[in-house]
């Protein structure tokens, strides 16, 4: 790691700890009182993805808490698949568009959106509806299929990942907003906040070869997303992450928002009827100090927007 990267990490983790009321490593047993007693996690249900996001981000202290004036913001949805929004494989486009607009409303200078798609990028961006939603909200779609956009950075404290090639926007943006969609996953058991970050990495094959769970757990050591908004409106309960038929899907109409990706994913594992401990990368990430799996001890705000 170069000096600049180190300071950036220090700054990011420091500010994250201050702002989120997130304690340092191994000391989350007793939650310290947050600045304004903001919840660690907000769970919203019974609304459209946009309604749920609006209610959720307000309960989390508003977008201004995460996005400062004049900043470059990366919104990272899941655009991995050449599928329509109704098939529940990619993040809901309306939600992505709303997050982009919220970031601009909070004063962002530019909101960039990209994902290293599994299938052909052009068709994924198009069919998922995300490209249009982002453009309609003045966001900027970036390609993630060119290797020249990726930079090799060290992973401090990584065992499986010593170095990783990361998309420049993930490294250079002032704020990263992770907007995954909740799905079951054959290899990772589930995909939500942590697994979604594989979409800013060039060589995913290496992760599969050398230990998928350990790699997923270690990657946020490079940088943790500032906010995670997990789309659980349509949830792929089985055959994920691609899905085979509509029978894999369940209309859950939920959303989970949290600055802590491990906490958000723990709640999401429950939604998929899984034991969070069975999702091996969650305990591994917790042990690396990237977040907490203890839903009982963290403050959770549950909202229903049905009206």
């Amino acid at each position, binding site marked *: 790691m170069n000096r600049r990267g180190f300071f950036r990490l220090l700054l990011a983790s420091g500010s994250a700890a201050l702002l989120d009321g997130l304690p340092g490593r191994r000391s989350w047993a007793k939650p310290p009182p947050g600045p304004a007693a903001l919840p660690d996690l907000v*769970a919203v*249900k*019974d609304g459209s993805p946009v309604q749920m996001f609006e209610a959720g981000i307000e309960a989390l202290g508003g977008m201004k808490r995460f996005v400062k004036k004049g900043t470059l913001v990366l919104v990272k949805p899941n655009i991995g698949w*050449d*599928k329509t929004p109704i098939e529940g494989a990619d993040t809901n486009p309306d939600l992505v568009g709303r997050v982009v607009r919220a970031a601009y409303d909070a004063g962002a200078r530019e909101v960039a959106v990209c994902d290293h798609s*599994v*299938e*052909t990028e*052009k*068709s994924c961006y198009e*069919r998922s509806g995300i490209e249009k939603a982002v453009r309609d909200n003045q966001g900027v779609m970036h390609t993630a299929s060119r290797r020249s956009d990726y930079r090799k950075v060290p992973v401090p404290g990584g065992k499986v990942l010593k170095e990783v090639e990361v998309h420049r926007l993930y490294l250079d943006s002032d704020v990263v907003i992770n907007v995954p969609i909740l799905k079951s*996953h*054959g*290899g*990772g058991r589930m995909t939500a906040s942590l697994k979604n970050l594989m979409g800013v990495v060039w060589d*995913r*094959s*290496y992760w*599969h*070869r050398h*230990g*998928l*769970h350990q790699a997923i757990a270690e990657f946020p050591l490079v940088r943790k997303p500032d906010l995670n908004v997990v789309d659980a409106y349509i949830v792929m*309960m*089985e*055959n994920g*992450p*691609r899905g*085979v*038929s*509509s*029978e*894999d899907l*369940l209309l859950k109409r*939920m959303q989970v928002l949290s600055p802590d990706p491990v906490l958000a994913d*723990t*709640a999401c594992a*429950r*939604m*998929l*009827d899984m034991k969070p401990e069975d999702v*091996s990368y969650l305990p591994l990430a917790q042990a690396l100090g990237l977040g907490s799996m203890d*839903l009982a001890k963290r403050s*959770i705000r*549950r909202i229903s927007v049905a009206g």
Partner: protein
Amino acid sequence: MIARIRLQLSAFFFLLSLASFFAWGGDRLTAFFNALHPFPSLAPLARFDLPPTLLLTAAVLLLPLLVGRLYCSYVCPAGFLQDLAARLTGPWKIRPRAAAGSWSLRLFLLALAAGLLALRSPAFHYLDHFCNLGRAYSLLLVLLDYAPFGPAALLGLSFMAVLGAAPAFRPRWFCGTLCPTGTLYALLQKRSLWKVSVREDCDSCGACAAACPALCIDRGRIDPELCIQCLECTGACPRGAIGLRRSPGRRADAAGAPPAGGEGRKRLLRSALLWFTGSLWAGMFRTIGAQAAPPVLSTVVPPGGRSGSRFAERCVACQTCVSVCPTGVLVPCGLQRGSPGVAAVRLDFMKSYCSYECNACLAVCPSRAISYYPLEVKKTIKIGSSALDTKLCIPYADKKDCAACHEVCPTGAVEMVKRERIFAPELRKDYCIGCGSCQKACPTQPVKAIVVLPQEIHSFAFNPKQHGPGAARRRLRIAAAKKTEFPF
């Protein structure tokens, strides 16, 4: 004036041909442009396969009977490229007057190509300008690093060399020597209703000869076998002596004097002999080709190809499908054993995969080697079957979670099954369509643990949308998960 119109129109059709090849104008434009070319388009007719575009092809064949080779002069992109090369290589005044191929040679080559087409062999594509042009355009794909350099690019390169270099010695040499379509149109033009002809008051000033881009006028006499009916001469004549006129009928040909009875019979006999020899050679090539073809292909051919051998008998190697493939999985074949033909295409799953949501190549094939199926049908066409090597597969060999193949499988053919503490892939072959997503995604190196083996005769896989693997079990689980409260 006419020269300028001709230049603009042929430049327009040249751009149209590029748009057609790269499918910039959609499938319909490509289908339309393909249908203008009798050579690959009539191939389905020999198999009594009658696509609706055949009507357009028939109309195109009637055109030379009315006004001659307007296609050659105004539409043909290969003609445009030759005219361009002629302008660049030698200004009209200093061009050497090399001879074009003899009419006998041309008739023989036409008979050969037509014979191959009628005998259901795709080998006519070596002569045909349309297929060669496609291969020449595929050089752009190679330059953009989209397709590998192979026999297709080599053939395209040599075609471009002929188009570029020959006009320095004789303009439109390819049209007047090798092109079977050109010879066919010349044959029809001899019987056309309107023809360029010279009136009595011609004083042999040579203005028309100087204007002729096909070099077919000599001292007021037009060579009917080389004339491409471009009409540039009619604008050049100061007296208006040369022009497009209703033909007087069979009694006088364009050369002026009607042939004597004996001369006519001799000519008829010679053509018959040439047609016979051409067809004989075609039959010979066909027989040799059939014997040289491997009994079972070792390559995967596109969905819609129906079977390896069916595809091999139809593919004219024009590379249009390679250019429209969005994932780049279609590549031209090499000379290796087991490929459907020199420069024909195959799917390379080490390079890419066949997209589930795409049937682009099915809509553009000019020879119907790839039959068209709607996307929903194409999604169930089985072109191969995946095979798993558990000695290499990471969950089996290293006892680690991976699921890269399961992740990308569009049909649920790779199911993850619990083995001790991890999940390992198991194949449900009834659902596998052989799209190669798993082979492309498999992280093992250098040999992939999961590969797609070709299926000689394509079939249909189970439709996962109708009866997915373990559907009943899944329904139960989903019903159990239907809770409205947060589970935490």
